[in-house]
């Protein structure tokens, strides 16, 4: 991460080293492709193995503005190092540049993050839901999405046992 902040000082907002020794940095959204390209293509860094993307809805944490945090996990085979990039986006404008042109593996992970959190990846070739069905309303991993909210495609029979379900909770 030292190299990144030296090379692209404008991109890095904060840098951390967590208890378990993982290095991570908060990147400004507009600089994300640049940072990722640098990490991937610099011969000494070589963060080529794309592990995954996910997001965190910070709604119930103390510091929750901006609300979403998109987290990228990269691994360098040559350096044997994991690195985490974070991009913070607001609820009103959850847009992050897509990394699909850089990493093919980002494709499905971005779809997954879009599916669960509604993060828009600008420049993604085919941004649609991946695990849930297209008719699904809302984004289930947002903290304000109720745990027991149900959106059945086929209507369910109401069942009185609200603790065990299935079916509507029995409440209006």
């Amino acid at each position: 991460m030292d190299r990144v902040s030296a090379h692209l000082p404008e991109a890095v907002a904060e840098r951390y080293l967590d208890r378990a020794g993982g290095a991570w940095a908060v990147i400004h959204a507009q600089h994300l492709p640049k940072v990722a390209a640098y990490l991937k293509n610099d011969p000494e860094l070589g963060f080529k193995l794309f592990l995954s993307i996910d997001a965190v809805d910070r709604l119930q944490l103390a510091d929750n503005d901006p609300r979403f945090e998109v987290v990228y996990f990269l691994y360098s085979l040559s350096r044997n190092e994991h690195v985490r990039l974070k991009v913070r986006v607001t609820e009103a404008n959850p847009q992050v540049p897509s990394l699909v042109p850089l990493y093919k593996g980002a494709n499905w992970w971005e779809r997954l993050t879009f599916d669960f959190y509604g993060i828009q990846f600008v420049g993604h070739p085919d941004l649609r839901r991946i695990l849930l069905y297209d008719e699904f309303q809302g984004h289930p991993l947002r903290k304000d999405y109720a745990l027991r909210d149900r959106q059945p495609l086929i209507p369910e029979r109401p069942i009185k046992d609200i603790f065990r379900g299935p079916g509507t909770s029995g409440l209006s």
Partner: protein
Amino acid sequence: MSDPSKQPEALNPDTDAYAHESELETHLQTKRMYINMGPSHPAMHGTVRMKVELDGETIVKADPEIGFLHRGFQKSCENVTWTQCLPYTDRLNYNSAMMNNFGFLNAVEKLIGLEIPERAQYIRVIASELHRMHDHLTCVGATALELGGFAPFLYAIEGRELLMDRVTELTGARLTTSYGRVGGLNRDLPEGWIPKTIKSLDKIQDLMVEVKGLLMANRIFVDRMKGTGLLSAEDAIDFGFTGPCLRAAGVDYDVRKAKPYWVYGQLDFDVPVGEHGDNYDRYIMRLEELEQSDRIIRQALQKLPGGPIIVDDWRIALPPKPEVYGTIEGVMSHFKLVMEGIPVPPGEVYDSTEAANGELGWYLVSDGRGRPYKVHVRAPGFPILSAIPQIIEGKMLADLIPTFDMINMIGGEVEQ
């Protein structure tokens, strides 16, 4: 076809002899065909629906549609205590449930900053490798079955059953083990388990000789495996392959070696690396890893130290039952741990272990309240499955089956 009313001189293919002759020269005119493979298809492991566009037998476009097994893993985990997440992790890769258990626990322990007792580390290694063998046996057997060989499947499944029996003795469950707790394990090895396990391993070695004999020189099997499902090392890295599929492409990356966890650093084993990145190499990787797992288990069983199997800290591990029933301290600790969960300090961690199919990564965020704030699982099968269109487009439909088998996609973990 041309409109006869506009072109009266046009040849009538049914009556005109010349037409027959010219048709012999041209290719058979076929339409593109769209077929659905799955979600209920014997060769689609789990429940994946593959929308395939076929030109003859060549796949022009493949679009895997997943999510039929989606269970809301993350959302469920966010609403239960850390310990209660364990049964959910069983259902991720149901062929190697204990590896998911331990991977999750390892990440939680990292977040707490906890070192587990050595005996627990050894047992975790042993159990993980048992389940790695279990996973690979299933994969190899199922591949053989789907390529038409029923006998190797039976041999492999017999070996798997032996492992399952051992796992049952160890954990009390065949499939969904929920073995292990934060800070260690929930129970010790049962009596007489070690010799039984060694016997089972011997038996599996015999069985593998049979399987190899049936498959390695089998023309049909080898022809369908060799050269199919090719993916270059560069692409594999770009897609985020890990595990046997990445190593088959010639990239030497194994979390057990790269960042040794538990006692893997003290054990002697090799990581096989392939060179072509085709299905046959993946198959060889799995056979080879079976041998290596066998080695690891034998070593670990030999070195297995005595001692406790779980940390002695009442903020993390449940107190022993006599204490719970007999002292107020014990009952309080038990009550708080069960009702509110382990007070994991606020923070976040990314941690990975080598599961049967590759790097199983966990990104956990805690807000310090006894329940996970966020549980992200990097299922190894997910990026591998995402490469299927790239691998298979332009290839034959028949290649899809071995490819799909050898990437060993597990619906549970991919679809969370």
